[in-house]
């Protein structure tokens, strides 16, 4: 069955590039701004750029926080990207402490401030897969993906980590909990491995 992908549009930066990466592969995707528009989609992508709290504020402002919880409960595959992954976590320490959606138990914490460690973690880094998964089908282990972020996830349940990346120690760069996946990197900017990951997501039934 042909997928029908919703990209949740909640005023957090330019989301066109994510759609471009789907369009390029003939994967039908539409922007969605209201909870009631979400029905009928086979897959949902929650993108995000910028600050955690701003993202959560916009999600709540559009009543998308509840809507996301509902589609997850229905079993619809959901993919969080970058800050869209971060808000899946329970909370973030970005500029204070802020509650997230709590779908993936854990915290977002800042990379430490220390000599020689550049923050944000910016550029191409490898991801080591912890197990096989439909999201990773056909993608070579240790592929490079493009990252830009200053906070990293700390999982309460380490098993939720599907991919690990080393930057001042290992952190989960791909998470999975049930029908919810999250990637800290930008698949839409990660050339072939990123395009393949998006295509894989659209094939998850």
């Amino acid at each position: 069955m042909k997928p029908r992908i919703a990209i949740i549009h909640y005023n957090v930066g330019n989301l066109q590039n994510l759609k471009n990466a789907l369009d390029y592969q003939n994967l039908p995707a539409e922007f969605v701004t209201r909870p009631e528009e979400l029905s009928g989609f086979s897959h949902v992508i929650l993108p995000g750029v910028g600050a955690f709290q701003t993202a959560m504020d916009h999600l709540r402002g559009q009543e998308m926080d509840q809507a996301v919880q509902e589609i997850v409960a229905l079993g619809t595959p959901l993919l969080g990207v970058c800050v869209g992954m971060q808000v899946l976590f329970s909370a973030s320490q970005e500029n204070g402490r802020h509650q997230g959606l709590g779908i993936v138990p854990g915290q977002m914490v800042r990379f430490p401030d220390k000599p020689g460690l550049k923050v944000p973690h910016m550029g191409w880094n490898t991801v080591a897969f912890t197990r096989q998964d439909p999201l990773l089908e056909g993608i070579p282990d240790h592929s490079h993906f493009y990252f830009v972020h200053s906070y990293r996830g700390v999982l309460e349940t380490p098993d939720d980590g599907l991919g690990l990346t080393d930057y001042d120690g290992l952190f989960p760069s791909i998470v999975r909990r049930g029908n919810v996946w999250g990637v800290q990197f930008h698949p839409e900017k990660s050339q072939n491995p990123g395009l393949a990951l998006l295509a894989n997501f659209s094939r998850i039934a």
Partner: protein
Amino acid sequence: MLTKRIIPCLDIKAGRVVKGVSFVGLRDAGDPLELARRYNDQSADELVFLDITASHENRGLTLELASRLAKELFIPFTIGGGISTLEDIRAIVSAGADKVSVNTAAIHNPDLITQGALHFGSQCMVVAMDVKQTGPDRWEVYTHGGRNPTGLNAVDWARECQNRGAGEILLTSMDRDGQKSGFDLEITAQISGSLNIPVIASGGGGTMDHFYQALTIGKADAVLAASVFHYGTYTVNQVKQALAGRGVPMRLTEQPDVEETGAIEPGNKS
């Protein structure tokens, strides 16, 4: 492991790629989209486009280029040149660019960096700075293609950019630009060592050794080059493989190095 980045730079004038030798005597080196595709196939880690005219009528061409690039190239790219307002940034980001590079306008109005980072995120704000060595252990920031001194000390200005929310520094040595005599390792290392945001070294890359030195002795996180790539001296892949062979972390892909012999002749309008 985080890899070091190799970034081809395309200077754009009226929709065409040009590259000056020390900013004098521009030569036409091809079609931007064509070159961008080639570099993408060669595993370029990012691309930078500098609109060196940035006149009002050419701005539209640049936005159109950004939008076409974003539809078929899935690596990050930056657009710079003549960006002086938040509206300029918004237009470029909306067209599909991941980052903007600001230079002169940021010196005249440093608040542009602060506001840009606030509205679009630090990851979006690259501050380009052109420096010249003006004495022993003294480098000064210049504007207008190296013609106008600003009186700003290079390291101090780089720190201020970081404090205002810049996500990266694109550091060009005006003494070296287009000379292929090697990057200015001293100022690159000083600035990279003083900041905790990435520094892109630019100006002077001519040989494999130059790239190697910039990323090791110069402590740069990325190197940017134009002529060596545009005129086919090396492919991006060749540089990356040579550096990886010397122990520099690089993203190598298994894609074929297409058009190995595709050096673009000056004046070729294809």
